[in-house]
């Protein structure tokens, strides 16, 4: 395994990416359907969603969009964040393997 390259393709299909994506999106989506289902698991997605709307709310053109529309960019951003997390995770694993 030593020296194996992390390719973009590997990261895109990597389980760590999809797991973090699912954790960001699904608990919040569930709570959006019925807020009684809001759990602490939804917190990361919740904070990210709120942050995106806070920024959008002060941008001249974006501010006219209803907050419901933020689900689309939210999902895109979640995927981006998951890619970064996934890449970080595999880079750490690789380093750990090499050091061993």
């Amino acid at each position, binding site marked *: 395994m030593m020296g194996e390259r992390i390719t973009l393709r590997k990261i895109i299909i990597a389980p760590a990416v999809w797991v973090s994506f699912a954790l960001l999106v699904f608990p*919040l989506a569930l*709570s*959006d*359907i*019925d*807020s*009684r289902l*809001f*759990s*602490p698991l*939804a*917190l990361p997605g*919740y904070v990210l*969603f*709120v942050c995106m*709307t*806070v920024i959008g*709310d*002060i941008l001249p053109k974006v*501010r006219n969009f*209803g*907050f419901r529309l933020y689900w689309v960019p939210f999902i895109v951003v979640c995927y981006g964040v998951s890619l970064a997390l996934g890449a970080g995770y595999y880079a750490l694993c690789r380093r750990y393997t090499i050091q061993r």
Partner: protein
Amino acid sequence: MEGTNRETGVYEVNGSKEGPTAVVIGGMHGNEVNGYRVAANATNWELDAGRLLVIPLANIVAIERNSRRGPDGDLNRLFPSGQKPESALARAIWGVVKDTDPDVVIDLHRSRGLFNTHRRWIGQVLLLTEAHGERAIDTAEYVIDYMNENHVPRTMRFHRFTMADIHDTDRDTGMLIQKVQRDIGALGFLIESTEFLLDLETQLRWTTTITEQLLDQNGIQRTA
């Protein structure tokens, strides 16, 4: 209601015992569904004491159009203190409120955003007028704590209810709760519940509970 073309109904619910009088108003803004649905439900409530007057669909034309404003603009800006309300509908509503001689008036609304988070939206707020006494503040604090403890999930930090008052003493907002306080000395509360990341059922549940709690704190308990 007299003086209006469209029927804006007024309903009365009487408790089994004597007690204070309250007015609950929904649909002041026609696109705030939680407000008029909760007020409509309140016409069927049963009370242990007191009297509840409900105007569930205050701005029926705006409700039918699903728009905030009615034919005369924003209805909740047409109630200047010490003067005649500025439209036929506003005058009719004010007539009912005044004749009822209420101890407390509760106006139900919906916000789109979160308090102190989204610049353009007021968020989940219990609004008081500047003339509130200590009792009104105590009541509001109790109800807000109750909501945050029992209904808003602990980790939903930005959704916590807050109290706010219409600051400037001199400024006349034209809001009904301010006129109520200034002209007839009744307590006026405006409930803003948000739709942000909340399903309609939750909005209805929270608006209902906060209304019940406010009435309860003012001596009118819902029994069914």
